[in-house]
């Protein structure tokens, strides 16, 4: 029993230097699961309520006002209960197995993508080196849900919705991928935690403001993201004025709500991805989180140590809280809030757009993608590339509070230069070129293969 | 786990072999051109699994290294190209003959 508490304690405050035990991992896993489930499921509840309130305000009405007090904040819950109670209908012409499986495919994909989405520095379910790529890939899988639903429903309107969805999502993956590549290129990694951390400091360090091209790319990213999660004005797959309800025409009750949870889940996902890739991730516009956390930890740390002392009478001594861990965790918590706020802002913008604009036609959606988004994204990509290679000044060079993002310079462009110089030159075995031993605990992406000398060289150039 | 701890290359090869054989049988038995295409995908995937297994550093001390992954990537891309062409052929066949049954594609038979 004591060991159990010890490990939980360790998982948060790392009292010992050795790696945490299995139960600590289990606790961490449970926390991650709970967190992600809440972001997807409870998040959907909140976002649906938000959408109602926002659309109400946009349209000069109040939105829900009854259930759960003046703001109607329990309205979605009440609707959820209604949906659970509704009859689950499978049409006669439907392919029953696929019809029933389709909503879960979408929800699972949406949920699965959250595995790689960090909510704060290191607060991520699975710390992946290819997180960006993974999220895009899994988002791409989500398209099967409408396709299968549309096909299996046995309704022509559903089939239309499915075809549209397939064509649209597959097309929009192209510009979306191009846009995502730009921050990865600047940071030299696909690791979202690293990308986020590189934008520490004031908001000038955010990649969207890195150079003019990244800003363009950020805008295109958001457009394409809106399209790839099927939000208006690109919500052709469920265009109610044309296709009744598109691919979910035949669905009812809880199955139908799974589509919605998946939709809102992916909305927050792409917004969160935008926040990390372009808008500083969990870093606020002004770097005040760490000082505040430092001050707070002066209060919290003694309290924790006191608590440990009290609990220690029952379960045995748990060990001292490691110096600085509390401050880091508080900063992380604030970062997490930061991140949630940013993601929510993205979702809100999507709602705002939805309730303002008419819907595009399918050919216009394709034109927007192929004639506008792809060329602009390619232009932004090339521009950002040229900017990086020529070492043009970025907003990051401005003398502002916070860290200077020197790592940004450490992109693969330099690595390639370095390697090419090494290999084409005669002497190859200068000690700088050796790979440094990897430290498994240090999970950074950009420096993984970079010889130490590169830093020195860059530092000198500055 | 019983029997397969630690996981070795051989275990991956078994999965690869099952995929390969399933795909091959699929190609042989399916009459729908797209079913045949799916068999091809399975075969390719089985082969890919072998490359990954040989390149993995978790399964062998002396692994193939990066080449395994690089070749796997090439295979994936080529499979995509293959699927596109095969699908185009299937659609063309369907358009011209109003059927997707490969057994009826006997125009070139002597």
């Amino acid at each position, binding site marked *: 029993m004591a060991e159990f508490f010890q490990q939980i304690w360790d998982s948060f405050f790392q009292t010992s230097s050795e790696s945490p035990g299995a139960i600590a991992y289990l606790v961490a896993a449970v926390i991650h699961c709970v967190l992600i489930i809440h972001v997807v499921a409870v998040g959907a509840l909140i976002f649906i309520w938000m959408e109602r309130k926002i659309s109400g305000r946009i349209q000069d009405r109040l939105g829900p006002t009854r259930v759960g007090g003046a703001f109607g904040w329990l309205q979605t819950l009440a609707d959820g209960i209604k949906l659970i109670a509704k009859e689950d209908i499978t049409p006669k012409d439907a392919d029953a197995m696929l019809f029933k499986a389709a909503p879960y495919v979408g929800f699972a994909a949406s949920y699965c993508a959250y595995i790689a989405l960090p909510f704060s520095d290191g607060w991520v379910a699975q710390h992946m080196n290819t997180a960006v790529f993974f999220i895009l890939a899994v988002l791409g899988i989500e398209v099967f849900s409408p396709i299968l639903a549309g096909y299996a429903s046995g309704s022509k309107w559903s089939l239309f919705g499915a075809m549209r969805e397939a064509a649209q999502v597959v097309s929009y993956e192209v510009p979306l991928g191009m846009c995502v590549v730009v921050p990865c290129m600047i940071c030299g990694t696909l690791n979202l935690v690293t990308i986020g951390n590189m934008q520490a400091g004031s908001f000038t360090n955010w990649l969207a403001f890195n150079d003019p091209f990244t800003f363009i790319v950020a805008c295109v990213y958001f457009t394409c993201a809106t399209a790839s999660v099927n939000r208006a004005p690109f919500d052709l797959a469920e265009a109610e004025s044309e296709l009744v309800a598109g691919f979910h025409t035949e669905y009812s009750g809880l199955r139908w709500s799974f589509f919605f949870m998946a939709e809102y889940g992916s909305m927050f996902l792409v917004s969160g991805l935008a926040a990390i890739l372009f808008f500083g991730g969990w870093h606020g516009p002004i770097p005040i989180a760490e000082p505040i956390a430092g001050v707070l930890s002066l209060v919290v740390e003694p309290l924790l140590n006191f608590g440990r002392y009290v609990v220690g009478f029952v379960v045995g001594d748990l060990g001292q809280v490691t110096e600085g861990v509390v401050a880091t965790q508080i900063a992380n918590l604030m970062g997490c809030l930061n991140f949630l706020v940013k993601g929510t802002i993205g979702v809100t913008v999507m709602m705002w757009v939805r309730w303002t604009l008419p819907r595009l036609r399918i050919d216009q959606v394709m034109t927007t993608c192929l004639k506008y988004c792809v060329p602009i994204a390619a232009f932004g990509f090339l521009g950002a590339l040229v900017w990086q290679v020529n070492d043009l000044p970025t907003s990051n060079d401005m003398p502002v509070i916070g860290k200077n993002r020197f790592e940004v310079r450490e992109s693969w462009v330099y690595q390639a230069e370095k390697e090419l110089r090494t290999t084409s030159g005669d002497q190859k075995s200068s000690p700088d070129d050796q790979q440094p031993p990897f430290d498994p605990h240090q999970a950074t992406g950009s420096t993984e293969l970079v010889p130490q000398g590169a830093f020195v060289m860059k530092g000198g150039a500055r | 786990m019983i029997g397969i701890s630690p996981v070795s290359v051989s275990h991956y090869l078994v999965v690869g072999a099952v995929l390969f054989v399933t795909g091959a049988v699929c190609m042989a038995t399916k009459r729908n051109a797209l079913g045949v295409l799916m068999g091809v995908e399975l075969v390719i995937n089985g082969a890919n699994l072998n490359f990954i297994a040989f390149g993995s550093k978790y399964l062998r001390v002396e692994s193939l290294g990066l080449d395994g992954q690089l070749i796997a990537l090439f295979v994936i891309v080529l499979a995509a190209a293959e699927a596109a062409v095969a699908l185009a052929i299937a*659609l063309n066949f369907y358009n011209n003959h109003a059927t997707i049954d490969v057994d009826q594609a006997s125009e070139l038979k002597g």
Partner: protein
Amino acid sequence: MATQVDDARIIEFDVRTDEMLVNMGPQHPSTHGVLRLVLRTDGEIVSEVEPHLGYLHRCAEKIGENLTPRQWIPYTDRMDYLAGMNMNLGWSLCVEKLIDHQLSEKAKHLRVIIAEMGRIASHLVGMGAYGLDLGTFSPFLYAFREREKILDLFEEACGARLTYSYLTPGGATADLPNGWLQKCEAFLDQFEPIIPEYHALLTTNAIFVKRTAGIGVMSGEMAVDFGCTGPVLRGSGVDYDLRRDGEERYTEMYDGYAFEVISQKDGHYPKDHDYPAVPAEAVLGDCWHRFYVRMLEVVQAIDLVRQAIDRYSTASGDWGVPIKLAHKLPKGEVYLETESPRGQMGFYLVSDGNAIPWRVRARSSCFCNLSVTSDLCRGCLIADVPAIVGSLDVVMGEIDR
């Protein structure tokens, strides 16, 4: 999507798909009631549209053969239920034409106020619902917000909000209550500045223009050939409005009013300097123009109501006492059309000399306007079908009668 090839007998497709028959309606969000369109589609392209009517058919004409003209007034309300006042007006004028009843000045101005307010209310629905057809929800509520205020005014005048039965043969059921005119003016003052908001949300919105400009283009000749009337006809550039060109009995209501028929002449709309310019993509006779004509008619109606209020308050005579419920009709037959918001609403009345007509016939404007659908929709995309049908602004209650 089909591209041109040299050999005209060979059609090239992107990917061949099989033709499908799809039912749009009668339960469909964007068919304005219970219209059923049977679409024959090849992928997203619609090759044929066939409207099926009659889901709201209750044979109001047969009912009219068993009721006196005043008793039939509520049935006219329920034809175009979005512009009940204008329907009342059309039937009243028709009956008055048969019995040769002359109205006082005051009653005529009252009718102008009511009819033009009804026009505003109706066009507001047309506008909002068209936004819905194109997938934007907010303009609908903005439109209804203002329409509600008009309905409040109507309610004050006649006690009903949808089926008014207010204008009757002989005049109206009651005079306008005290203070009504001031309220009406206050509404117009408040409403007029809002119109640019609608233009910003719809008329000039880039996506809206993309969805409507150049879609469903109908030439003036075609519009006349299909008997299209009202904004649909004027949207095709035909300069024809019964308020100016109609029968004496109807146009004399508008004698002395300053208004211009809203139709594009020499590339310009009257008074269009205040309102957004026609976008470059728009072709005369497309959905955008039909919509724009409606928007301009709202402004025109505001202007007319203002003039009518001025003249009503100084006019002589009474508000027009209704004829007796069982007024004996002279033998004969009359036909009269009025310019209702959706087009020319005609009533045909045959009397054999009894109080109850021998035959009543309603010429529905939407019925003719809708008949053009299959020609306009040929070869368009599925998404264009709601755009085109919506731009015709049909009300099924009037079509099916």
